Each structure stands twice: as C-alpha cells, then as structure tokens.
C-alpha cells in the first residue's frame, strides 16, 4: 500500500478544517493482498497493551509474507490495517466503523483488548459479518449469540472457576501434599469481587479448602499492616491475592516481605496477565515478586522459545506477555482460515474459523490447547496456564507438558 506523507498531511489539514478525512486508498484488487484488521488502544491509558499487540501482529505478518504469503491465493500478501481504539468505547466503536467503511475488503481482524471496547467493536463487526478474534475475557462477549466473534481466551467465569483447582493440582504436584486452608486478600473492585463470589458461595468447600482469613479492602490502601498481621496469625496454606491496582500490590508485597512471608514462604496466587508485565517488575522489584504464581489465559510456553527470542530481538522487550503472543497467534489463525477458505472472503473465512481444529503450526503454538471454537465462538479444551516469577522473569510452570520451568510451592527460608 502506498500512502505518502503528503497525502497524510493533506488529510490532517482537512481534518483540522473540521472535516473527517477518510484516507484515500488505491483499489486493492489488482495487487494480490489479503487485508486483516487490528483495533486496539494505541493511545490513552491502555496504549502500552495495544502497542504490545501490534508488535506481535507485525512480527507474524512479516513471517507469513516472508514464507510466501497465502499459498491458497497464489502467494497473496497479508496486510495489517491498524486502528486506534483510543480511551473510550465510543472511540473504539468509531474506529471499527471507520475501518469497515474505508476497507470493504477486510477478511477478519483482532481486537480490542479491553472487554468493553471489544463489546462495542463487535457490535459493528457482527453486523458487517467480519470475523473478529479477541483476547478479552468478559463472558458477555460470546454470550450474546453473536456468530462472528471468536474468543481465544477462556472467559472470566471459566478462569475464576479453574484457577483454584489448577493451583491445587500444581501444589500437589510440587509438594505431594494438597493444601487444606486458604486466605483471601482482595480489594472490592469489580473483577476481584466477581472472581471471589463463587468461591465464597460453596466453591472453596467443594475443593476441600477452609477459608481461614478473608480480608476485603476499598482501594487505595494506605497501610497493609493490619491485613498482613491477620494473614500471619491465621497462617493459611496459601494466599489468594486479588488486587487490581499496582500501588496496592506493592504495599501488600512489601508488607509480606517485612513479615517474612514473601519469596515463597507463603505461596501467593493471583490471576491475570497484569501480574506478569515488565512494568510490574520495574515498580515493585524482582525481589518482592519472587515466587508469585498467577493464572493467565495465555503465556509463552514450551515450544515457543524461538518465537519469544525473535520477539525480544525485534522489540527489545525483556520477555513476551499475553498481549504479544496472542496477537501473533491471531494473525496465524487468520492466515490459516484464509488458506482453508481459499478466498479473500470474510464469510468463508468465518466458516473456516468455525470448523478449524489446529494442533500444530505457529497458530497452535501461540495458545494452550487446540485452536477450535464452539458454536458461541469460545475455545474448547483450554487448559489453565500458571506462570511464576522466578529470578525476575515470569515463566510458565503449569501444566507440566507446557512448562518452561518447574514450579515451587513452598520455599523454606
């Protein structure tokens, strides 16, 4: 695609004059290319996550084209079209509508990181029958009876249900003993509340766990001492940490260290990819994070070493997180779907997505479990992954067949 800076400048000028300039685009038909979209927040509070997604997607597109593009279409190149979802659902929806208006040839896409953005974006793509892959968790995304949205992550409900049983398996595997007691330390924001609700309402009992300390606070936390004192005196076999804000994480981990409960002396279990970002390490320090376990929808695992190496070299990122690896995988899934569809046609691509069952190749390597979607667009047979901070890096430690390192549950001081 040829988009010279002059035209862009003219476009900006037009926009400044109060008009909305759709970018002029030469007809795509004669050049052999297949266009896919990425709608992600590239500005605003979630910009970093969107940029990581873009890095992963760019890398996949480059690899696909280097290896000869779409074979079924005579080596057509895969082209990524990016739109900024910004910082609001309105902007995310506009971005989707704009992409579809200016790019009628799109065959599929990925987006939009934040659940509420994905909900708004898929309202547009569903009506335009554009298949969209998403890493967002919300159950609602695939709970609306939509036909053109494919959720690569286990839903939030599934993650909440699977995290503790998986943690128990991990503990049993590592120590030979099944934990009997648990503590919960959480803030009262939305995600932790909905995560913990089924656990308190009989979920723990079913797992044979006794809740010995249960502390809920309203963020921000000013002093973690009273909370950690209670944890220390109750001394649970492990502590479920459900905190949504970075400063609270820092306070709690510091206080745990002060009370000599950190570094694996009291096993800590959390949920979600924010617990494995480089920024967390920069803020909190590798020392305090050591031993922290977290369940996550996707994390680079055994077999991905090469992908991760290439990614680190390209981007200078210290490691690859969920955002990068899923966007990378999404591009490969779309590539496979186009190959199977045999045409740059979004309806056929959507059909191919519904029927595919990938267990090998770069797409399958990017996600735990097979790439297969049910009627709602949710993946089937997805194991819960656990990563653990070991020596300053969060590495996949469970399930064993995907693990890059052995987990440790308890580490005696």
């Amino acid at each position, binding site marked *: 695609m040829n988009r010279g800076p002059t035209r*862009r400048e003219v*476009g*900006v000028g*037009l*926009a*400044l004059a*109060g*008009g*909305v*300039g*759709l*970018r002029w685009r030469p007809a795509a038909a004669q050049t052999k290319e297949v266009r896919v979209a990425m709608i992600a927040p*590239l*500005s*605003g509070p979630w*910009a970093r996550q*969107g*940029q990581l997604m873009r890095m992963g997607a760019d890398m996949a597109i480059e690899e696909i084209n280097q290896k000869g593009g779409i074979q079924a279409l005579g080596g057509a190149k895969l082209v990524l079209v*990016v*739109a*900024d979802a*910004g*910082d*609001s*659902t*309105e*902007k995310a*929806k*506009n*971005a989707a*509508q*704009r992409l*579809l*208006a*200016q790019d009628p040839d799109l065959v599929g896409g990925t987006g939009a990181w934040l*659940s*509420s953005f994905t*909900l*708004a974006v898929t*309202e547009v793509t*569903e*009506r335009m029958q554009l298949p969209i892959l998403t890493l967002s968790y*919300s159950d*609602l995304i695939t709970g*609306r*009876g*939509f036909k053109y949205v494919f959720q690569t992550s286990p839903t939030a409900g599934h993650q909440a249900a699977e995290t503790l049983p998986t943690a128990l398996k991990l503990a049993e595997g590592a120590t030979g003993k099944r934990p009997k007691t648990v503590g919960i330390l959480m803030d009262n*924001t*939305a995600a932790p509340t*909905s995560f913990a609700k089924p656990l308190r309402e009989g979920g723990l009992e079913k797992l044979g766990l006794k809740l010995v300390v249960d502390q809920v606070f309203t963020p921000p936390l000013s002093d973690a001492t009273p909370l950690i004192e209670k944890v220390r005196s109750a001394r649970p076999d492990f502590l479920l940490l459900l905190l949504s804000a970075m400063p609270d994480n820092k306070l709690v981990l510091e206080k745990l260290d002060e009370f000599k409960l950190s570094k694996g002396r009291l096993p800590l279990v959390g949920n979600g990819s924010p617990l494995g970002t480089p920024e967390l390490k920069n803020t909190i320090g590798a020392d305090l994070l050591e031993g922290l376990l977290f369940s996550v929808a996707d994390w680079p695992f055994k077999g991905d070493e090469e992908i991760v190496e290439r990614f680190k070299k390209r981007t200078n990122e210290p490691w690859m997180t969920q955002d990068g690896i899923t966007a990378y995988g999404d591009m490969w899934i779309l590539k496979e779907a186009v190959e199977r569809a045999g045409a740059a046609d979004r309806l056929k691509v959507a059909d191919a997505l519904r029927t595919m069952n990938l267990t090998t190749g770069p797409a399958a390597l990017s996600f735990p479990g097979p790439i297969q979607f049910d009627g709602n667009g949710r993946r089937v047979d997805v194991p819960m992954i656990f990563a653990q901070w070991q020596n300053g890096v969060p590495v996949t430690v469970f399930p064993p067949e995907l693990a890059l390192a052995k987990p440790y549950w308890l580490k005696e001081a």
Partner: protein
Amino acid sequence: MRASAQTRQRWVILAVAVAVLVVSLALHSAYYQLVLTQVLLWAVLSLAWNILSGYSGYFSFGHAAFWGLGAYTVALGMIYWDLPPWVGIPLGAVVGGIAGAIIGYPTFRLRGHYFALAMLAYPLATLYVFQWLGYQEISLPMRRDAPILYMQFTDPRAYVVLALGLLVIALVVSLHVENSRFGMALRAIKQNEPAAEAAGIPTWAWKMRAIMLSGALAGMAGGLYAVVLLVVTPESVFGMLVSAQPLILALFGGVGTLWGPVIGAAVLVPLAEGLNGELGDVLPGIQGVVYGVAIIVIILCAPEGLYWRLRDRFAKPGVLRIIEDEPRPTMPVKPAALLRPPSGGNLLVLRGVGISFGGLRALDDIDLVVREGSLHGIIGPNGAGKTTLFNVVNGFLAPDRGSISFTGIPLAGLRPSRVCRLGIGRTFQVVRAFSRMTVLDNVIVGAFVGARDDVSAERMARVALDRVGLIDRAGAVAGGLTTRELRLMELARALAPLPRLLLLDETLAGLGQEDLAGILNVIRQIRDEGVTVLIIEHTMQAMVRLVDEFSVLDHGRLIAAGAPDEIVRDRRVIEAYLGRRWMDRITDTAA
C-alpha cells in the same frame, strides 16, 4: 421585536434540520453517518448544559450524571423489561429531570466554583454506584425479531434522523427558554443574583426548573446514545470526559447562545474523530495534542466562542436598530398606584426590630411607621444601619427581634422575591445592573412580578422607562450607561411592577448638581403618582428639599423622627452628624 426574532430563529432551525437531512442522504458511508449522529447527540447534551450553565451562570461539571442515567435507563429497561427505546428514551428524560431536582435541591445552596465542584461529584459517585451494582459492562440485546420497535435499524441514516429529532427538540426548547421570562430570569441570575431576587425573580424556583429541564434533555440524549453505542459502561457514560464534553463544546461555540453548542459540536466532534482516524495508527496519542492545540488557538482567537466571532463578522447590526424603531409608548397605561388614592394610613410598620452581627448591634429596637403616600427619608452617618434596615425590610436579612408588617401582612421570613411580589421595590446603594442586558431587558426583569405574561411585562417596562425619562435609551446595553442613567434604570426596574412602596438606597449619591435636580424631580413625580417612597441618604441638604418626613439613625438606633425643619434643629441629630464640639459652638452662638 422579540417575537419576530423568535420566528426567524425557527426558520433557521428548520433550515439546519433540512441541511442535516440532505447531508445525511448524500453520505454513503456508515461511518460518516455514525459521526454525524454523534455530532447531533453531543450538540443536544451541550444545549442541555447551556440551559442551566450557559444562561444562569451556574457551571456544571457534572452533566454526565444525567446523560449516564438516561443511557442506563434505556439499556436496563431493554434488558430487564423488554422496554423499547421509544419508551426508554422519554423515560430517560423523566429520570434525568428527577435527577436534576434531587441534585439541584442541595447543590443550589452553593455558588460559583463551589457549585461547579459539587456538581463534579455526582457523576463520579454514580459511576461507582453502577460499578458496585454490577453493571460494569452491559450490552443492548440484538433484537432481530423486532428491529424497528427496538431501534435497531440496518440503515444508519435512521439514527441520524432520530438524533436530529432530539436536536430539534433541544433547539426549540432552548429558543423558548431564551425568549421568555425563563431565560430572562436565568440571565438576570447570572449577572446579579441578589438584584434578581430583589426585583421579584424567585431565583431558587427558576434555577430548579433550569436544572430539571437541563437534566431531562441530557437524559434523553444519553438514552439515544446507548441505542447508538449498544454498549454501556459506567466510564463511557458517567466519565469525566463526558462531563467535560458539553462544556468544551459550548465554550468553543459560545456560552449562553442558542447556536454556540451546535457550532461547537459541528466543529470539534468531527475534528477529534478525523484526527483519531488520520493519526491514531501513525503517532498514537498525537491526536489529543493536535486537538488541544486547535482548541487553544480558536479560544485565543475567539475568546467568547466562535458564535460571537462569526456574528460580528457576518451579521447586520440589527438588534439596536429594531429597538430604536419601536414607537414610544404613546398612551402610558395609568399606573395602578395612581388609581389608588393615598389613604394616609400606615403602610409599613416596624416594631422593636433588631439585628446583631456578632457583637455589633446593627439595628437596635427600631420603631418606624411609614404612612402611605408619604416621601419618607432616612438619614444618618455612615455605618448608622440604614442599608441594613432596607435589607431587613426586603428580606435579604432576617431580623433577630421585632416585627415588620406591610399593609398589615407580616414580612418576617419571606424571601426577597416574595416581598417584592407584595409590592415593595428597591434600588441599591451600588447600582446592581444586569450589565450585559439592554436597558429595556433590565427593566423587563423587574416587571415580571407584576405582569400576567411576557408581552405585558414588556409594556410595563416601557411605561416605567417613560416615567423616569429613559425611554430613549431602551436599546442601549446597561454596561455603557452613565451613573445618572444607571440610577434611573434601576429606579425604572423597581417601578415597573407598580409597587406601593419604593425603597431607594442612596439614589442621589455620586451625582452632579444638574443630574441631582433631575432625579429629585423624578422621585417627586413618582410620589405624586401615589407611590410611597422610603429613601436613604446621608447628604442632608438634598433631603431637606425632598422629603415630607425624616427618621434619623445613629449606631443602629432611631434617634429622632419628624418634619425636616424640626430635624435640622434637633440637638441629637447635629451631634450625630457633626460631633459634640460643633453642637457646643451652635449653642454658644445662639446664646
């Protein structure tokens, strides 16, 4: 004049609506239709904001509260009760109106920055409430079975038409407000709330009506926003950006004008969206910078908003000329007071009135009787308590002790607007003009109290201006008047509703000899027409020529009362004014 302007504006609204429809038909891209819909919806929110904040000057940083409640009303109604948006959106307006009442009731105790900051709290608090209720992300169900009933059209132009419908409603409502006593009252409140209250405007009631109307319009637009966006989250409808948007659009286009918010939305919403589209994937975040710079540049070039800038450039200087063309009121309606022969009975009676500020007794045990038809002067040195006495009578201050009655009706505990309604008008020591309104409009504000409708208010205002001899200046803006003209205008404002008693607070202060004589004549004439006048002054000389009766205040006490020639010889009065040594000299000379 006003009616013809209103008709002209109606045609403009119609023309704009037709233009939007034509543009919408011409646009083929669903994306352009979506942006056009958003322009219209944000314009409605900004107009809603303008009704409260633009006209009354009570700046709201919290209109997201109404917008969000409207959005959630439609979304939750549809999810839980299968409520079609055709019902949900009007219901959203009702919810917005009720929210306006609930928010306005406590918040109107505050003014200025404090009001603005308090308003900020409501959407933020509501945001957390909706999170806590578990409505973090709700999505309007897709209803393929009844798309029209549930406003789920495949043709995006349908949303443009719906949003345009709301905009026309908002414009017509705003136009009506602007050209009625509603808008006049709000503008008076914006420029000088105490003066408005003293002129008989029930300020609290108008402010409540304004916030309820504003909330209803905002709730209505928020409801359609939910239908268009299909996903509602607390951040997207109660967030800070939503509250800021109507304010930015109105400031940009012109606060307190009918078209300002529309201009703001028509320029800024597509600009922001265009920048997102053009730059969002190239230099993410730069769009915000360019948007901010564009706003700064335009605000610097047109600080009062684009509307005034455009009007100054293109509009013909129409308003003033129209007023000058207006014929003089040929046959002044006879003031009602003239028809009432002065009875000479007791009109205003104060018994044992006292008020203290901390340790200072500003008024102490005042007994005062003002006879109907008299011209009663109150004199005393600075700080004697004269203005405080007026404030107690007209309701700005509540006395600690004693009773006040007017034509036998007790005044204690009444708001100034009620007191004014009973027939007591007043002017102020420092003229409280609505400085950006015309002389005529200033006086019309005062006339509302005594007028059945807006037309008769204008007629009464003209009569009052004629009575004080200021009718030739009716079209001038109050900010440009001389001191004499300002005094006369304030006099006309107090006189317009045909009060029985006028309280004049140092009306003569700061006037030259010639001006003074003119105003004295006007006051005498007013008295001769049957209006009782109570006047404060501390220059004795002018008063002696004017009044029938004197009361003298000193240190909050009434030290003497009687006819002018008695008072000037009263020892206590001379002592109060000139000091004991002067008194001694007078006594020596006499001896």
